[in-house]
């Protein structure tokens, strides 16, 4: 008798079939603008700065990463999942750096993902729901949502359950605001870690 082996993107979870991605409460969904302290660790190098985020009325996002001393590192606009960078500081103006930041920050604000058809999973030991959304080259973007609150807790990208290479974790203050108080972005394959802590939220 033949049996099929299905690779799950999570442990102790059960598939529930294909479903449109629903994020009840997405990060920045009620944000007008926010200012974050940022620390970036790339291998043994350490940088820090400030990230200004503004959500426009049409749902697009504008961001600027600046040093504490005010020097602009880059401007970015994210419209429907597509990021464009401008005014990039010369030392960062390299294709691989730009592509990494574009992908990271457009994922950060959860732009252009609503309504995508994904595979839905539920967990036995928690109220979390997982949407595993196929991308190209056998990579999937995975969205972990708290079932009761609808809040997105975590996003990660992986080729397989054991081959996760990118993740974003969101932390909230618990006052109902959907502006994350803390965010971490981790790239496993290039030893890149970014941490954000909110300074101002309007």
């Amino acid at each position, binding site marked *: 008798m033949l049996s099929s082996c299905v690779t799950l993107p999570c442990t102790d979870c059960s598939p529930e079939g294909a479903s449109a991605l629903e994020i009840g409460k997405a990060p920045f969904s009620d944000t007008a603008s926010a200012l974050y302290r940022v620390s970036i660790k790339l291998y043994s190098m350490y940088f820090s700065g400030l990230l200004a985020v503004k959500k426009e009325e049409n749902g697009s996002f504008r961001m600027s990463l600046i040093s504490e*001393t005010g020097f602009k590192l880059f401007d970015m606009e994210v419209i429907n999942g597509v990021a464009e960078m401008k005014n990039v500081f010369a030392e960062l103006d390299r294709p691989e750096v730009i592509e990494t930041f574009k992908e990271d920050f457009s994922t950060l604000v959860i732009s252009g993902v609503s309504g995508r058809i994904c595979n839905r999973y539920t967990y036995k030991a928690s109220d979390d729901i997982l949407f595993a959304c196929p991308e190209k080259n056998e990579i999937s973007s995975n969205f972990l949502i708290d079932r009761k609150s609808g809040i997105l807790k975590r996003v990660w990208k992986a080729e397989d359950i054991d081959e996760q290479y990118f993740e974003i974790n969101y932390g909230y203050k618990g006052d109902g605001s959907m502006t994350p108080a803390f965010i971490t972005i981790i790239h496993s394959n290039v030893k890149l870690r970014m941490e954000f802590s909110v300074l101002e939220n309007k």
Partner: protein
Amino acid sequence: MSLLNFFPESDLKKTFIFIMLIFSFCFGETVQTAEVKQNANVAFKELAADTAKWQKTVSENTKKINSIRSSFKQVKNLSFLSQQVTSGGKFLFEKNGTGHRLKWQYTSPFVYTILIDGQKITMKDGNKVSSFDMSSSRVFEEINDIMVRSLNGTILSDSRNFTFSIKESGRSLMIEMVPVKGTPLNEYFKSIKMVMDTGDFTVNTLTMTESSGDFTELTFTDKSINGHIDISEFRVE
């Protein structure tokens, strides 16, 4: 045969007067334009002479500044934000045998210190201390160089990389520096403006406007000039 054979005398007179009026107008207009041009040339020469005079005066006086201790306020204007990003802290500057030292100690709304000693930059963010050699980043090196030379006034002698205009306004000098096209700084900055106190020739305000139009404005207050700064104050602890 004369024109009178073809035109009545009255018509001829009218035509002659009309032609004289046109000639007078054109001549007058030419004279007026020439006067305007001459006045403009005089004004430009006076401005150039003033600029040169102030460049010399600033250079002579800023050489006497060996140290500065002050408070600073930094305002970052990003065009897409309705509110500016404001921070502040303490600033130290000292000339030493090999060049200079600067320390920016941010105290609000975050705690952060950056120390520049010659080519070495040390930054402290919380408990994390990191350093690097400024020569590894040409643009960063040039920006830092601009900051230092703006603060100690020596930038006014850099005619190779900037064009200058200097105006006196009460006890202040309003200095505008525009990076020369084709220089690396021209790609980053549209202009740099300084307001300098003619009492002690220190900078009150430094505004750096980027090519995008966004700008950073530094305001220095509670200045103490040429006071003693202990070497221990230039440590990042």
